[in-house]
Every structure is written in structure tokens, then in C-alpha cells.
């Protein structure tokens, strides 16, 4: 199993270095690792697993920090990777945020946690709840700006907690506002017992249905590939460890298992006998504490959720679905020295939803002299849209503050060239356009949380919770169920 676990700052400083076995030179490996990653060939990102001088290095990057392990054994790399993510997550659960500062302040706590999570390099317990009984050091709050240092910050969103970065965007959905932001970044340890609702002590649970879309459109608008990576993320700050029961759509089919009832795989062909639209997932998996005994009967999941953040369920839809955006591109090469590109954007989602922070990036040919974007009439100066060409990227970026459902927008780009021939030849070098966006209170798969019940009681009943809404049960526990759809890779070819 693993011989050593270490955490490095983005600059390669050793923050945590824990040795489990003597078969690797722990003082050297951190440096070898950092150099190797830093100077990986051709400036590429180093793969997660590599070997150097007979030592195997496995690493992940979380919140800008390198969390890495070394071993000389033929271990399961997926186990080590999962474990490293989990170590980072537990430390984050404890410290509230994961950052260099927080780690340095809490290094003794981190060592104690690692000692409980791994023995002789073997993973033991990574469940925050169980760890609480065995870990005695208390977290010390980092003073750093939480917005900047939270796990979700930075360019690469990670599974565990990328949500926290986008929490602020939920204002329009009637979901928690700034008060919640700090609530989300708090330590699981800080939860006091009892109904005290002072800062950091609220008795509440967040259930977020997060869907990331991977769609590629061909130039004719058909979908080359389309996939939803969904996840039900829970952040649990409930007091007294109650059991919860979560119900999903009754008309939910899972590929392979009940294919027969709903026709071909990967498509929403199935209309169930009840007439409702069926949701078909190609595959899904669950958190280990989920009790699925009723799942096949009425699509309910019971569990005693561990404290802190975890993915209750991950699912995948590979079939075609109604995409939230379509982008049509027309390139006119009728004028010499020039290409006129027209981008027509259509928001296909319901009118009640609003997309925040849409950005369309459209690369233009390398040899162009300039590209000049023109916004549609009426939108100039409204502050809602903005488009600009950046020489360095060779791309036009078209940004929206908000896009209403069913809205249509047009952008015209005039691309000029040094000579006539290159204009025509370069036509093929336009595009593809990539879209990045977040649509709160909307989910592409139509997977719904019908109800969320806390404790054994009948409260929080079948009336359900509106998307993006919150509610309070009889015992004073707050429940928040939110939906969000984000782009992961949303590409429209030209």
C-alpha cells in the first residue's frame, strides 16, 4: 500500500508529509515529485500516475494544492486517487475550507486525521462521522477570504464541492444568499448540539441536484454526442444524526436494469402508463451509506447521512435530451478580404428560468488581421451583453449577464484578412464555438427530488418541495433542495 502521503502548496512547499513505510526516501520524493510535475514534457499536465526512479507517484490537485502519495507496490491507483480526494475532503470538512493557510494552521489536526484515516498506508475510515469520535484536536479557523480559498474556487471545478463557488449565483432561485455562503464553508465540528441557530450552528441540510452537460453539435445542429453527468450532492449539517428519506421521480428507469419497460437505451422514448414523462438514466451509483431496499419499489433512498459534504448519487444520461442552448453559425465569404460570421443563439429552456453568466467563445482564423463583433440592435449599452475580440486568444468572447428562457440573440462578427485568397481559405478555421453557463433551478434530465423527509415522522410529506425551494420540518430542521445545470463541455461546430 502507499508509503507516504504529502500535500504541497502550488509553489511546491511541503505542508504535510506523512510517512507510513520506510521504502521511499520521504524527504527527496516531495522534491522529485514537484519537479517532475512542473517540468512534464511539452508543458502538458502530468498524468495522475507516474513512476520516477522506481517510486510510483499518484496525485490529485485540489484547490490548487497537490495531494500526493508514493508507493513501491503495485497498488490500485483508483483506490489511491479516491483516497486522496477523500483525505482532502475530510480535511475540508474539518477546517471548513481547504487552503494552504488553513492547512498550515491546522497541521497537527491534519496529521491526527491522516493517522486515523490510514494505518501502515492502508485506508481505514474516511467517514467524518466515525472520525469525530476518534479525533481530538479542534480546528482553527483560517482568516483568509473564504471566497478565494474555498475548494470550489479556481479554474478546475472538482467533484467535492465545486458547488460552493456557485452558491452566490443562486440569488435568483430563491435559495440561500450570502448568509449561506459562510454556512457552507463551515466546519462540521463547529455544529453545536441543540437548537441554537447562532452562526454556524443551523440545523439544516442542502440537497443539490447538479448536472454537468457534455454536448457537441455538428454544423447542421444535430447532436454528435450528448451526455449528462449528474450528481445529487448533499451537505449535511443536521443535528443529532437523524435518518433521511429522499424520493426521486417514480417514473425513473435505469438502463440495463429495466430497459424492457422503456424501449431503447439512452433515449427518453418511454412514456409510462401514467402518461408522465419517464426519466431514463443509463447508469447510476450511490453513496455507501444509502439504503436502497425500497429503491426498486418506489424510488426512495433512506440513509443516515454522514456529516459534511458527500455525493449521495451519481448518474449518467447518454441519450439525446433537449439542449438548453442552440447556436447557429452562418459564415458569409461574399466580400473580398472579409468573412462575415453571424452567430444566432437560442435559449431553449423554459421561460421561467434564467441562465447566469453565459459566455460564448468563438475562435477566428489565425491569419486574420482583426475581428469586429457587433451586438444586436437594442442591446448595445443595456449592460446585459458584451462582446470583444482578443488578439492573444484569436477569439471573440460574447458574454451575457443573464439570458431568459426562450430568448434569442444575434452577434455579427466581421473578420478581416490581409489578402483575398486567405479569407476564403481560412473559412474552415472558424470555430468551434464553446459555451459555458450555469442555469439555476433547471435540470436537463428532469430528475426530481419528490420529497425529502427528515427523521421517521410523516413531515415533509408528498407535497414535495418546489425546485430551488427550502422548507422547514416540524423539528426546526431546514431543508434546501436546489437544481442547477452547468456546462462541462458544450461545443457547437461550424
Amino acid at each position: 500500500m502507499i508509503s507516504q502521503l504529502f500535500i504541497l502548496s502550488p509553489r511546491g512547499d511541503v505542508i504535510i508529509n506523512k510517512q507510513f513505510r520506510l521504502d521511499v526516501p520521504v524527504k527527496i520524493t516531495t522534491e522529485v515529485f514537484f519537479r517532475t510535475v512542473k517540468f512534464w514534457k511539452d508543458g502538458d499536465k502530468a498524468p495522475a500516475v507516474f513512476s520516477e526512479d522506481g517510486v510510483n507517484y499518484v496525485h490529485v490537485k485540489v484547490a490548487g494544492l497537490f495531494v500526493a502519495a508514493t508507493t513501491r507496490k503495485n497498488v490500485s491507483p483508483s483506490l489511491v486517487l479516491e483516497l486522496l480526494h477523500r483525505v482532502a475532503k475530510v480535511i475540508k470538512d474539518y477546517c471548513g475550507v481547504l487552503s494552504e493557510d488553513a492547512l498550515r494552521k491546522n497541521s497537527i489536526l491534519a496529521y491526527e486525521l491522516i493517522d486515523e484515516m490510514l494505518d501502515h498506508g492502508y485506508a481505514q475510515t474516511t467517514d467524518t462521522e466515525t472520525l469525530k469520535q476518534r479525533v481530538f484536536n479542534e480546528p482553527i479557523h483560517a482568516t483568509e477570504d473564504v471566497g478565494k480559498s474555498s475548494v470550489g474556487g479556481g479554474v478546475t471545478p472538482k467533484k467535492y464541492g465545486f458547488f460552493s463557488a456557485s452558491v452566490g449565483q443562486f440569488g435568483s432561485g430563491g435559495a440561500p444568499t450570502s448568509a449561506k455562503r459562510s454556512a457552507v464553508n463551515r466546519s462540521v465540528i463547529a455544529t453545536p448540539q441543540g437548537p441554537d441557530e447562532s452562526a454556524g450552528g443551523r440545523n439544516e441540510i442542502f440537497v443539490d441536484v447538479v448536472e454537468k452537460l457534455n454536448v457537441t453539435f455538428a454544423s447542421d445542429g444535430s447532436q454528435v454526442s450528448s451526455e449528462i453527468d449528474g450528481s445529487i450532492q448533499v451537505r449535511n449539517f443536521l443535528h443529532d444524526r437523524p435518518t433521511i428519506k429522499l424520493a426521486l421521480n417514480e417514473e425513473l428507469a435505469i438502463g440495463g436494469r429495466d430497459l424492457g419497460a422503456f424501449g431503447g437505451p439512452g433515449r427518453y422514448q418511454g412514456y409510462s402508463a401514467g402518461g408522465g414523462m419517464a426519466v431514463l438514466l443509463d447508469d447510476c451509483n450511490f453513496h455507501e451509506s444509502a439504503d436502497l431496499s425500497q429503491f426498486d419499489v418506489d424510488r426512495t433512498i433512506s440513509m443516515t447521512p454522514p456529516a459534511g459534504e458527500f455525493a449521495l448519487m451519481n448518474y449518467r444520461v447518454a441519450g439525446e435530451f433537449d439542449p438548453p442552448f442552440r447556436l447557429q453559425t452562418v459564415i458569409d465569404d461574399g466580400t473580398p478580404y472579409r468573412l462575415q460570421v453571424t452567430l444566432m443563439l437560442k435559449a431553449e429552456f423554459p421561460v421561467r428560468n434564467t441562465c447566469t453568466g453565459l459566455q460564448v467563445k468563438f475562435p477566428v482564423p489565425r491569419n486574420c488581421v482583426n475581428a469586429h463583433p457587433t451586438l444586436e440592435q437594442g442591446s448595445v449599452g443595456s449592460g446585459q451583453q458584451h462582446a470583444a475580440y482578443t488578439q492573444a486568444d484569436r477569439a471573440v468572447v460574447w458574454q451575457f449577464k443573464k439570458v431568459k428562457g426562450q430568448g434569442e440573440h444575434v452577434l455579427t462578427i466581421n473578420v478581416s484578412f490581409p489578402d483575398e485568397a486567405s479569407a476564403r481559405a481560412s473559412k474552415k478555421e472558424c470555430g468551434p464555438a464553446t459555451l459555458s453557463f450555469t442555469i439555476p433551478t433547471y435540470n436537463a434530465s428532469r430528475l426530481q427530488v419528490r420529497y425529502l423527509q427528515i427523521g421517521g415522522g410523516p413531515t415533509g410529506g408528498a407535497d414535495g418541495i418546489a425546485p430551488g425551494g427550502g422548507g422547514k420540518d416540524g423539528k426546526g430542521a431546514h431543508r434546501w433542495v436546489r437544481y442547477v445545470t452547468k456546462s462541462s463541455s458544450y461545443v457547437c461546430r461550424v
Partner: protein
Amino acid sequence: MSGGDARYFTSYKKGEIAEWRNEINNPDRDKKKGAVKKVIAAMTVGKDVSMLFTDVVNCMQTGDVEMKKLVYLYLINYAKNQPDLAILAVNTFVKKDTQDPNPLIRALAVRTMGCIRVDKITEYLCDPLQRALDEDPYVRKTAAICVAKLFDINAELVRDRGFLHQLHDLLADSNPMVVANAVAALSEVQHSSSSGIENFTLASDTVHKLLAALNECTEWGQVFILDSISSYSPQNERQAESIIERVTPRLQHANCAVVLSAAKVLISQLEGVRNSDAVSHAVRKLAPPLVTLLSAESEIQYVALRNINLIIQRYPDVLQDEIKVFFCKYNDPAFVKQEKLETMVKLASQENIEQVLLEFKEYATEVDVEFVRKSVRAIGRCAVSIADSAERCIGVLLELIKTKVNYVVQEAIVVIRDIFRRYPDRYEGVIGALCDSLDSLDEPEAKASMVWIIGEYADRIDNAEDLMDVFLETFSDEAVDVQLQLLTATVKLFLKKPSSGPQNLIQKVLHQATSDTDDPDLRDRAYVYWRLLSSDPEAAKEVVLASKPMMSNDRAYLDLEALQQLLRQVSTLSSVYYKIPSAFAPRSTNIINGVNLDETMSSDLADSANKKGAENSASASLSPTPGVDMLADLNDGFEAAAKQSASANLDSFAAFPESPGTFLTRPSSSQASNPSSGAFAKSTLPSSRRPVLLSEHASSGLRISGSIVSRGDGMPYYDFLISNLTQKPLTGFQFQFNKNFFMLAPEQQPDDGMISPGESKSCMIPLSYLGTSAGGKASLLLQVAVKSPLQNDAIFYFNDQIPLEAILQPAAEMGFELFTEIWQSIRMVDKCTKRLDVSWPLSGASIEGALAKLENNKFNTVSLKSNDDAHVAFVMGKIMLAKSEEYILLQITFAIGTGAIDAACRSRVEGISDLTLLAVHRLMS
């Protein structure tokens, strides 16, 4: 703790140590704890606070768990450097803490004592460990791991105290966490055991217990259990199916490690299932979870894709309909994109080729140059492997050439050369289009490819002569690869169009290649052509224009045997590197003092940063040691050889060079020219029947396979097959053995027969027992050095295991009385018992068969006694040791009822019993 730990990290002055010492000895609890925290904070940032050892360790005498944990943290860190001080602490934690009423403290003590690697105190650990193995589950699971720790420090002690049996018992524990840790500890013991006697083979009832524990376990425990089950060989098809059925639900787990380990079990158990419906059913279940792994973090995606690329070579259908999910996303990291490309090439078929080509074409316009090149190559690989799609692929490549993007054009030309080789005389219509881009070629490989194409189709390209003329103008500036191609292509041109123009060209190029170059390959090749052309132009035609061997499909680049080996390694590092474990993770790791290792490594540090992957370091250290006096070099050499085996690299491309004659016209084949993707490229495993002892990569082209056999007269022979993969004849080999336990030495050296390039010869070398004894415990290890005079007197080293049966003496009859007398003799000090798992069912006939097999290998049956439910065989063997004969006695009990075979072995030679039982097991199964 208002100020946080941060204040412990403030500057560190000389007076501080004294100050901390004062605070630690302060009776106030909080002050004490605060001070210890400061000390530990200083320790974690690498400051030396060892002078406070006694003060800190004194704080251990407290009921405060937090305090105790802090002290233990300190203790572990310093115990290995300050063993003498550590012993002082032993009293407290062995005598008191391991008997504390609080299980948390007991577990803490057990966990910590295993981390204190001080030989002197391990003895003290045994009693507390014994106690801990049957206590509270939390303590028990910690103790299970502690056995593995102790084994690492002192294996003998663990065996003597019977801890391994206790671990086996824990497999049936009621607490699944304990079961999981026991499995983990047993697997580790098995892997690190140098003698290999701790063979942790699962019995079928154990497998059932493990499967039962599986559902209750933590996710990590599930991985340990699944990994151990994956190496279990099922007794019959029904059992394999039932294991598959029990494990399949694990594929739904959110933890990717569980999913991959479950997939590994499925794949390994499927080998035992012949019912094709059951196989396809199980394989179908495998597909969705594998695809779901691609939704995980990119690091895990990478691991998943490497595994998927293995699995689909064995089960091509499993993901056939899922090709779309492997399309690259624009924001995938480079290492994921490259793996996805590989998967797409492997999954491409007649049905989806249109879609796939559209994708590749799209990728070829991206900005990442390396990725673009790989995409263009991918198009060529599809063309080569799917015959019906070749035309479409060429079409796409021509479109790409028209973009005039320099690196795309060059890559496309290289790829088209491969397509021409694969489908000769079918697509020469596109040559015209290729010739339009001649000016833009500046990379040697693309240039060489273009020249090859011109030479190959010289009779159909009207202006071939002019084109060659232009290329030849810059002959002396070209890279060697291009020069070689130019030379060959000019000869082809001349042979196909023997007119005056080409004749001038050929004279020019032959002259340049023989007189103006330093490259021996180029010069030699030019001379060969020259002589061929001047002596017999017809023969030259036959050689140079000979039809070329078919280009193989490189989609399935692993041969079946290698693939099977790697599939057994799914979900391990091995499956990510595509190397078998012994190539990068030696079975028994030497425990080297951390400090020394640090030093040796830091000297390498400077250049190691420039190295990528293991290849460089391996190839650097693999250069042969030129030796004047062979024996003097022996010891150094063995050390070097031991190091090499740690980093030895199995990478290899084409297995054999083609026979002379064809190599002249052979353009670098596509396999050889493919840049290895990532640091870890293809691996090919030896496929000859005799095990390969010395790989040609370690010895610049000399391959030796073989094993020690017995010829019946009691004298062993080394049966070698020596292959010469160099370019020159080899002869005059000399073999030497290092000191070995059985004192084997070569009695003769091989005769002086010449082995020509590409040829293999076998030879038998008789061995004697006149060598030098290595002493110590019995060991079958044999270290061999071979000197090859024609390779600059290079000496190569390899290790082999002596098969025990090869060195057994033919034994005279022995009576049962004598057997029992010797058996009970007090001098039979070396004893070992073991349960032997065999795949065959026990019956009178099968037992006799097994004993006959032993008899053939000189294990004679003294007596066979039977009652209703068991047969007991008394078996003896004889070995030669330091010119005296030693008996090995065996008592093998075949329990018909339970199907179990228990064997006990006794001997006077220390260590031989373990080895005997291993050999008997191997011979019987």
C-alpha cells in the same frame, strides 16, 4: 486555543527549547499540552526537537487521549532515529496502554508500537499483540495491520508466534472491518515474503466468508477483499458464476476503486466460465459502470481509460455501442485526450467509422500540436486496421493536406506511407496530391516517408527522377533516416528505370554514402548495394524489390499472453503502465535505511528531473559492464543487476529484426515509428517456452532463456537457448555462478559454436556441486553471469530459481521404520506444514497419479497408508549438500472427505522444508 496552531510556527530561537522544556514540565495541563503542540509543530516543519524526547515521552502518563496522541505522534517520528530512547517509552505503552480500559488507547498503542521499527523492542510487542488480536473490534482491526508491520520488521518472529494463523482466523471475524484488514495484511505478507511460503491462497469456504463480509464493509475494505478474490481460482464453473453474481452489484458503487476492483474480479472469474451466454451477460453488465468512470475526476478518468483500453482488447464488444462517450471534450486534459483517442481507434469499426473520422478531422484543427498529430495518426491506424474504410480515411487525409498546415501535412504523409504499405498498389492515385506539398516537408520522418513512397512507386511517377534529384541535392545535410531512405529509393528507381539519368543519380548517392559519411549503417548499406549492383543486378532486384511482409494491425498491439497477464492486473498500477508488476514493483522490497536512501537519491536528483518515465534510467543502467577480470566484477555486477531488476523495463517493439535481405527495403514499420504514447509504451512479454532469463534489451541483443533440468543421473544440467539478436555473430560464451546455497557451479563452458545473427542455439551445460556455498538458509536463488567476448567482453547478469526437483538425488529404497526413525530424530530441526490447494478432486486414482508425478521427480513414496477418509503418503527425497547427503521427509495427508491436502515436511537443513512444500505443491497441481 484562540491563536491557533499558527503561533507554534513562529520563529525558532535557541532559548525556545529550554522554554518549551519548562512549559512541558509545568503541572498545568493546558500549558503542558500547549507546549507539546509547539514541539510537534516545530517537528512537522522539519526542525530537530529530539532533545526534548524524555520530556515529551514523560507526558504519556496521562489519561488525556488528546495528549497521548500528541506524544505518540512525536514518538513515531523520532523512534526510528533514536532507538535507544524509544525503548524508554516501551514500558509505558506496552505495559500500561495496551491494557488500558479504553479501546481507543489500546488501539493507539498497538498502532504506534508497530511503527517503531526498532529491532530490540519487537520482542516486547508480541504479547500485547497477541492480546490485541482478540479484543474489541477497533483494537482487533488495528492489530491485524500491526501483524503486517511486524512481519516487515521481523518475519521470523511473526512465523514463530503463529500470528499468521491468527490472521487467517480473523478472516472469519464477525466485524467486516477486521476481515478487510486481515485480508490486506495477509496479502501484504504474501507479497513481501521472500521465501514465498506465506502463500495466501484462499480456500473456497474462505471466499464465501469474504463475499459475505463484502456487503458490510467500508468501501476501502471492499477493495481489499475484491482484490484478494480476484486472484482466487474457482473450483468449477458454477462457483465462478456465483462469484460473478455476488460481485456484480459492487459495480454500482460510487467509489471508482470499488468499481474497478469489482471489474477485475469479473474479468478474472470469467476465465473460468465457458457458457457464452453467461459471459456475454456479465460483460454487458460491465459496460455502463466502466463508462460512468469517465464522469469522475480527470485523474480517475485517466486510470479508467488505461484499463478500458486493456479490457476492450479482450472483450471488444463490451463498449462497441458506446464509442460516443469517448469523444474528446475540449477541456479534457492532454493525457485524457490521448487515451480517448486510443480507445476510439480500438473501437472504430465499419459501422461507426464515418462518425469517428469526423471527430478525428475535427481534432486535427485544434491548437494542441501533439494532439493534432496523434489524431492524424489515428486516422491512418483506422485505415490500416479496417480495410473497407481505407478509402474514406485517405479522403480525409487529403482534405487535411489541403489545409497546408505544416505539421498536419507532414503527419499525414507519414500516415499515408503506412497505408501504402498495408494496401500496395491501390491508392497511388493520391501521389500527385502528395507531391504538391514536397516543399513544406522539413521533418525527417515525413521526408523519409515521402522518399520511400517515391522509391516504391518510381515506375509510376513520371518525374520521379527529377524529384529524387532535388532531394539528393541536400543529401549530406539530411538526417540519417532520410539518407537511408534516399539511398534505397535511388536504388529502387535505378532498378525500375535503368536509364542513364538514374544511373548518374545512383553513382552520386553511392559515392556520397560511402565516402562522405561517418554513419556506419549508411556506409554499410551503401556498400551492400554497390556490390549487389555491380556483381548481379538481377539478384539486386530480387533483394531490393522483394515483396514486403504484411504490415500488422497495430490496434491490438499486445500479444495474447501479455494481455492475459495484464488483465489479471486490472485496477493496479501495472494496468496503467502496461508493464507486469515485476518490471516496476519488485516482489520483495529491500528495507533500506531511509537516511542512506535519501543520500543516494539526492546525488541522482540533478539529472532525474530531466528524465521522464523509467525508460531513461533503466537504459542508462543497463549498459553492460565491460570487464577485464570477470570474477572481480562479479560482485559489483550482481549489485548492479539487482538494481536493474528494480527498474528493468519490458518495453520492446518488434520482436525480431527481419532476416538480412529484407531489412534493406524495410521502411521503419509503423509500429516502430509510432512514438510511444506517454512515458510507458508497449510491452511485449517473452513468448518462448523456456523462461527468458536474460532479455535482449538488457544485453544489447543477447537473449538467453532456459532452466535447470535433471537428466536422471542425479546431476543437473542448465538447458539454455541462446538467441543472437545482434547484427554480428557471437561465440565463446562463459558462464559463472555467484555463491549459492547448493554450491552449484558450471562443470563445462559451452562449445565454441558460432551463433549467427538472428539464430538461436540450444546448449546443455552440465553442473557440479563443487561451487562455493553461500551459507545461511536454504535458498533456490541462483545468480548467473555470462561473458560474451564478441560484445566487447561484456558481462551480463541474470537471476534464476533452481527447481528443487532438478537437484534431488536418485534415492535408494527406504523402509517405513527407517523413515519414522529419521522423522522423529531430534536433528530434524527444519519443520514446516502447509495446506496444499489443488484443482483436481481427490480420489484413489488421482492420488496415485500425483504420487507418481512426484516419483518421476525423485520424491519417492516410502509408504502409503489408507483408512476410510484419508490417505497418508510418506515421501522422501535426498539432496546433496557440501558433499554429504541430506534427507527431506514428507508426510502428505489426503483427506478424501474434505478434499484437503495437508503436507508436513522435516529436514536437517534449515529452510529447505518451505522450499520442498512449494515444489511438491507445484508438481502436484
